[in-house]
């Protein structure tokens, strides 16, 4: 299903809270949290931080964010075997990722890319979009 595009206004509406949550979760100054920073490369996030982040976002925005949601949404209607094979993202999968994570600078997409490396692409804007999608879902279900 094609989702309505997320606008810059929607992203900026949630960004201040997302940035503060990121700074709290990562124990860093909020000034370091730039919209396009790589959470792993620039802000030293680890897998436990992503778990922390998701729960903090859920509590702050009162939404549900299933774990693994970003990759699942990026994959969309592609079968898992079409998206990745033997732990490596396929060309089709990479194209989907580029479209879905269009906030990520193009040079950060490597080819080939291991599926386990996908979180290296995530930025604060990625999580702003996660929140906006979750808010839309919650609104649609209300």
């Amino acid at each position, binding site marked *: 299903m094609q989702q309505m595009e997320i606008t810059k206004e929607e992203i900026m509406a949630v960004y201040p809270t997302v940035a503060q949550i990121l700074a*709290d979760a990562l*124990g860093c100054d909020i000034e370091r949290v730039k919209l396009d920073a790589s959470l792993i490369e620039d802000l030293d996030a*680890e*897998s*436990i*931080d992503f*778990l*922390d982040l998701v*729960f903090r976002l859920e*509590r702050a925005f009162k939404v549900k964010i299933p*774990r*693994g949601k970003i990759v699942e949404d990026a994959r969309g209607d592609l079968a898992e075997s079409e998206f990745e094979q033997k732990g490596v993202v396929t060309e089709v999968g990479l194209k989907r990722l580029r479209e879905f994570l269009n906030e990520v600078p193009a040079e950060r997409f490597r080819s080939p890319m291991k599926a386990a490396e996908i979180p290296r692409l995530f930025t604060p804007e990625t999580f702003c979009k996660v929140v906006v999608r979750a808010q839309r879902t919650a609104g649609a279900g209300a």
Partner: protein
Amino acid sequence: MTATGVRIAERFSAFSFVDRITELETGTRAKGRFTVPEAVAEFPTCLAAEAVGQLAAWVAMAQLDFRLRPVAGIAREAKFLGAVKPGQTLDLEIELEACDDDAVAYGGCAWVDGAKVVELSQCVGPMLPLAEFDDPDAVRAQLGVLRATGAPIGRFRGVDRPEAVVIERTRGARLRADLCWPESAVFFGDHFPRRPVLPGTLLLDSQMRLALELAAEATPHRPLQPARVTDVKIRSFITPGQVVALEVAMLGSANGTVTASLGARVGGKPAATARIEMAAGHAP
């Protein structure tokens, strides 16, 4: 490890802090009890927090049919509200916020004689395969014991605290110390039989003691106690015999509360982070 066969005797005793589960609503909430044996010299309040976490782990493991268990993780806030003495009984209560194959999120409390001694909020435990850490059938059977007759009281025999070797100290401001929990420490046999790892609460207990030592240097005329620990995050496993580099740094003081950052590194990599607030007024 070859000692596993020997250490199996420690399972469900050397580091187990739920004697009985008195109420259990699958995937939602539970109540339980733990009696601190009279014979132990002391019972750090961090172990009351451990008891709350262990009750949540039982509920989570039951919910996931003993495929997975939470190990270490995150605590947004732990309040330390009172002391626990040998011979006292902890009444435990937890409520799950979420529980799935990735994580369990929960909060909970421990009481002694109706007075709250520990309160945990917004805790998250990442799930890992239970079979990596223990025998799932044995764990399942133990839940049956805890739900029915309860485990025998008095199994816990205390934990030895290793001596911290101070590496660097700026009086009242910053302290770095090395600490090593030896492979022979009996709690490793229970935490966990197949894969021993240092319990985060023991690490926190040592860090809190160093923070109090540092705070006492900064405010010698005003004895402080731990009041609250926030943003506890266990980032990696610490295995038996590893040297842990602890770092405590005073961050400031406001309204009678002194705040310090707590860090732990193993091999130069961050293993755990937290903040502690210390205040006068009660004695956990």
